[in-house]
């Protein structure tokens, strides 16, 4: 069991090219974070944000350009991947194609000279754990996607590593299987009580599994915190719009708007989540309201998603009860404490009225 610590980590893929030409963007730039021992940490971000690069630097598959990677009390920058005592599960499973399931699982143990008897016992035990006992003699191409995924998991578990690393392991599975595997992973984390680092571009996966989320964008850390913290107290527009589906509505402000507790200046933005808004046929001055018209309506069963248009542009409103109206003009209204405010750089303005309220939200 060990903390993972990244100190001023940068990754520059074309360092050699760089010297000759003008500087281009680094894949990962000066990031710092700590992954506490035993946590389930999800590194999330849009594609190209540097999350896989970060993960691969922790695993030792990618050299670190600058900074230090700590696992426990040692710097592992120059430690071979095999000597870091970590196990990795890849997106495409990366099973050894010509080996049987048994060999796939036992390969890592053989390489470090575990006695044959012990290997056998451990393989059988892990195979039972992931329901693969009947398939030990099969080759990977004779297995279904879900079974291959389980082999990849078994291969990781059998090594009893200090650290599990997952690189988008569920993205090749269909939706139903993905939900199942998500639960299995959460249970696995509870049972193994080991550090999990999990990379995904899917914020739903991040929200449902993580106890700590590290949100990256363009090689920089946007925010680190629990899923609820990121959802209720995003530090900037990027975090606000990345977490939650549909994304938070951002209303660019072009003229001074005076609200109950503060004034919003041009250049700043107001944000509200689609699920916090309501629709009505009359304005109501107890709330923040905007005259709008409904563009489209999507019935999703348990909820209804409206796309509305007003002077701020288009926004989403999500209601649990369908809103039926014949009026041409409708009014979107949001409680003042459910509004978010961002400055002209997209940073959230803290200390305005919503702040305390959302802290309560996070704690509740």
């Amino acid at each position: 069991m060990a903390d993972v610590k990244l100190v001023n980590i940068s990754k520059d893929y074309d360092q050699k090219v760089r010297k000759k030409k003008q500087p281009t963007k680094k894949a990962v730039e000066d990031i710092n974070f700590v992954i506490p021992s035993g946590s389930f940490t999800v590194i999330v971000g849009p594609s190209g944000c540097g999350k896989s690069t970060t993960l691969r630097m922790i695993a030792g598959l990618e050299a670190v350009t600058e900074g230090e990677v700590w696992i426990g009390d040692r710097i592992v920058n120059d430690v071979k991947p095999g000597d870091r005592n970590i196990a990795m599960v890849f997106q495409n499973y990366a099973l050894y194609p010509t080996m049987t399931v048994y060999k796939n699982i036992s390969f890592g143990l053989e390489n470090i000279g575990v006695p044959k008897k012990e290997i056998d016992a451990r393989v059988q035990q892990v195979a039972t754990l992931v329901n693969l006992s009947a398939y030990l003699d099969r080759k990977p191409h004779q297995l279904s996607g879900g079974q291959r995924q389980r082999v990849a998991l078994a291969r990781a578990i059998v090594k009893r590593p200090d650290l599990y690393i997952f690189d988008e392991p569920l993205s090749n599975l269909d939706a139903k299987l993905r939900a199942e595997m998500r639960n299995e992973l959460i249970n696995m984390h509870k049972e193994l009580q080991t550090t999990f680092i999990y990379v995904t571009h899917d914020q739903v996966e991040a929200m449902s599994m993580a106890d700590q989320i590290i949100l990256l964008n363009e090689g920089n850390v946007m925010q680190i915190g629990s899923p609820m913290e990121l959802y209720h107290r995003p530090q900037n527009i990027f975090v606000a719009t990345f977490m939650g589906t549909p994304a938070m509505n951002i209303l660019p402000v072009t003229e001074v708007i005076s609200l109950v507790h503060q004034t919003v200046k041009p250049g700043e933005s107001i944000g509200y989540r689609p699920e916090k808004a309501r629709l009505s046929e009359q304005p109501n001055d107890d709330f923040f309201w905007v005259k709008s018209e409904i563009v489209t309506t999507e019935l999703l069963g348990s909820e209804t998603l409206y796309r509305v248009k007003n002077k701020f542009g288009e926004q989403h409103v999500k209601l649990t009860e369908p809103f039926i109206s014949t009026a041409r003009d409708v009014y979107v209204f949001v409680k003042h404490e459910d509004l978010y405010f961002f400055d002209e750089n997209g940073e959230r303005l803290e200390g305005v009225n919503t702040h305390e309220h959302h802290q309560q939200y996070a704690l509740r």
Partner: protein
Amino acid sequence: MKKSLKGVEYSLLAIVMLLIAFPFLWMLSASFQTYIEIIATPPTWFPSSFDLSNFMAAWQSGPFLTYTMNSVVTTFVVLVLQFITMIPAAYAFARLEFKGKNICWSITIICLMIPMQLIFLPNYLLFSQWGMIDTYWPLILPFATSAFGIFMLRQSFKQIPEEIIESARLDNASEWKIIRTIFIPVAKPTIITVLLFTFISRWNDYFWPLVMTTAEDARTLPMGVALLRTTDAGVPWNEVMAANVILVIPILIVYFIAQDKIIKAFTYTGIK
């Protein structure tokens, strides 16, 4: 519609097969014919008897046991050497980054394009200066590695996803262990095919041994067969054909054993 297309397909296949098989069948038939039968016009299609006298005569017309041994030894050593040299080279080209990689690769590709007729003279001079003419060396050393084999193997190594190798590295496997347990098994069909091509070209080669050997006891089987034709009393075609059958049999046996692997090497689509 479909049925008639199938018919066309099969008849085309039959024609191609006949074209390929005919010389073989005629060779086989001729190897059993008597001298009278073989010079008859119109040609004899089926020999009157199936005795092995032509084979005996061909075998005894020269030191065929020595020829065969020479062929077997040189071919076998070449195969072993190619196996040893090709795999690490292909692995390096496919997977490692090192200085001069592009230059080395260009040289390998150029080797693929230079015809043997262009290099036999400098090679001959070199071996004669080293005093190696009439030994096995000139028949082995120039073929110790194969540019074609490195090229083919590199392609098949490149198909292996990077993640599998990374997985193996995380599983504490050394580079050699990765080559042994992952690359070689995956590339097995390609390796077998490349070695089979080498086997056929070495076993059948006439030109190179002709240049590099002058003494009887250094000659290989194809030369022995060719020597049969240089008799004063007219070419005993029936015996030449019998000798050819002897020459071809090992190739046919090897081919039949490795057949499915060869098809795999050319239809291989990657790893699931």
